[in-house]
């Protein structure tokens, strides 16, 4: 019988922010089904040291999970400064798959500051927008 090695998947507890990037702005003008939009929005900016902790290299896929669900995204090192414990997903359907929808009774969902978990998922695919919409909304 083969020796079974059980490894607990390492998870990182972080705060999820969503927001604008210039690439997302350019992508949305080309069209929501465009490559530009897909590349700009189906990714997550992470801190370099956090990525090391997870054993994840630049452009490797990760699974981000919040109480609202999970989504596979491409992890990209945040180029400007250290942001330990923070991850940043550009606005779009990928971010909205997992961002908090609590409107605290004023209409505005809590798009910034959702607690989240990140784990490496190099074998999982990042869904294209059509696949993501189909999986979430059945259309």
């Amino acid at each position: 019988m083969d020796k079974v090695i059980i490894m607990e998947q390492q998870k990182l507890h972080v705060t999820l922010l969503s927001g604008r990037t210039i690439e997302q702005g350019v992508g949305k003008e080309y069209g929501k089904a465009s490559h530009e939009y897909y590349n700009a929005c189906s990714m997550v900016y992470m801190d370099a040291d956090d990525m090391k902790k997870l054993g994840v290299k630049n452009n490797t896929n990760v699974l981000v999970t919040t109480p609202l669900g999970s989504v596979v995204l491409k992890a990209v090192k945040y180029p400007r400064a250290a942001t330990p414990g923070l991850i940043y997903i550009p606005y779009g359907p990928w971010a909205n798959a997992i961002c908090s929808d609590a409107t605290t009774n004023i209409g505005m969902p809590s798009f910034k500051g959702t607690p989240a978990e990140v784990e490496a998922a190099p074998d999982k695919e990042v869904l294209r927008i059509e696949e993501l919409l189909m999986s979430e909304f059945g259309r």
Partner: protein
Amino acid sequence: MQVINSVTCPICGCLCDDIEVSVENNEVVKIKNGCAVCEAKFLGYKGEHRIHTPLMRKDGKLVPVSMDEAIHAAAEILANANYPILYGWSSTNSEAQRVGVELTEEVGGVMDNTAVVCHGPSILGVQEVGIPTATLGQIRHRADLVIYWGCDPWSAHPRHLERYTSFTEGRFERSEWTSYMQKLKAGAGKKKVNSALRSGLAKGPAPKPTACYVGGVPPALSKGGRKLIVVDVRKSMTAEMADFFMQVEPNSDYEVMQALRALVKDQELDVDSVGGVPMEYLEAVADALVNCEFGVIFFGMGVTQSAGKFRNIEVAIQLTRDLNSRTKFMIMPMRGHFNVTGADIVQAWQSGYPYGVDFSRGFPTYNPGETTSTDILLRDELDASLVIAADPGANFPKRAVQNMVKHPLIVIDPHLNATAMLGDIVFPTAFVGIEVGGTAYRMDHVPIPLHKVVEPPEGVISDEEILKKILEEVRIIKAQKAEEKEEAA
């Protein structure tokens, strides 16, 4: 080739009106003066994702139909709905928004615009405490202290710095970036300039803080001339250009602003830090605020979407008000869509309320949290929706969209965006600001004319015309129903 000058860019709330558009054979071939997003819109709008004919979902698939069939089907849905949501309105002209109010009133629905997921909390804050503000022209010529709080104009309003604040030469305020920008523009092509700018102006003249709160308060905070302070939870592109970047912990803007209010009033705080900002830095920022001659706070989603939401805006405005007893200070929300300000203005002048207006009782009512589209969707109280000039399919929370697609969904958009992919009836429309003119309101509430530079594709009409056709058809259907009811009685 025809070159059209002073075209207004229909993308963000800056509404830059100095774009030079070259047109050949009814196609935009070249753009001058625009940012990267502007170029993407003017050169990419006619791409493969454009819709050319009305579409209807039949057997689970969107198939082309005639305009008359689509108009009739959409009008049937709206005329028979009890509580439809008419959402979007921010990427169209004010002429279409005005017809939107009429249509919403006719069908007894809820009219809401993208402010609900953007600067809705700012509107609530303003309704609580008022707003001391100015036009962007005043700010450009006079402001010697510019603060970007929870916003990254370099990403979301790429020419805001260049046209209205730090990079621009005002009549009374010089910009230390002028000679650098001129050299860069003279010596390199636009792409090189853009790439240099994107990489954070590594060779720029201002000292760049590499890490926050290390090595004492930067001397740039007490220098003369125009200063730029950026407050954010992460070092954004704009933060790289700032004289001082104040990094705050997520969801702590309220505390930091209250601390600044206390310091501005010369009160002492018996703590080491607030929201992750050491006291000595906060004191230095408070000094800079008090000692400026004309300061301005621009704020964005970092404040409106974080914990506290409209309370954050209230306290930001109160800070501005406090500062006005020591110097002159203004505050302004960084509005996103090019005409979201117009959507608020048109709804307010027509109904009395800026967003989330409910006509279901026959007269307009407004109660954010109850009559806002996100809440109605999350509670699943709607029975139909019309989405125009926005993309909630991509930008609303998942659960809200799941409820939206449970009911008939009408979409009016030039592109097959995420909402259109989910829609039941999809109308193609002309691009406002490229294929149809009109009026839009800049973020400082100044109305700016939009221009038509090319003809729309054959058979594609404007948002305003589509809405008018639907409205007309709704009235016919309602009249028929009333007649039938009368006959039956």
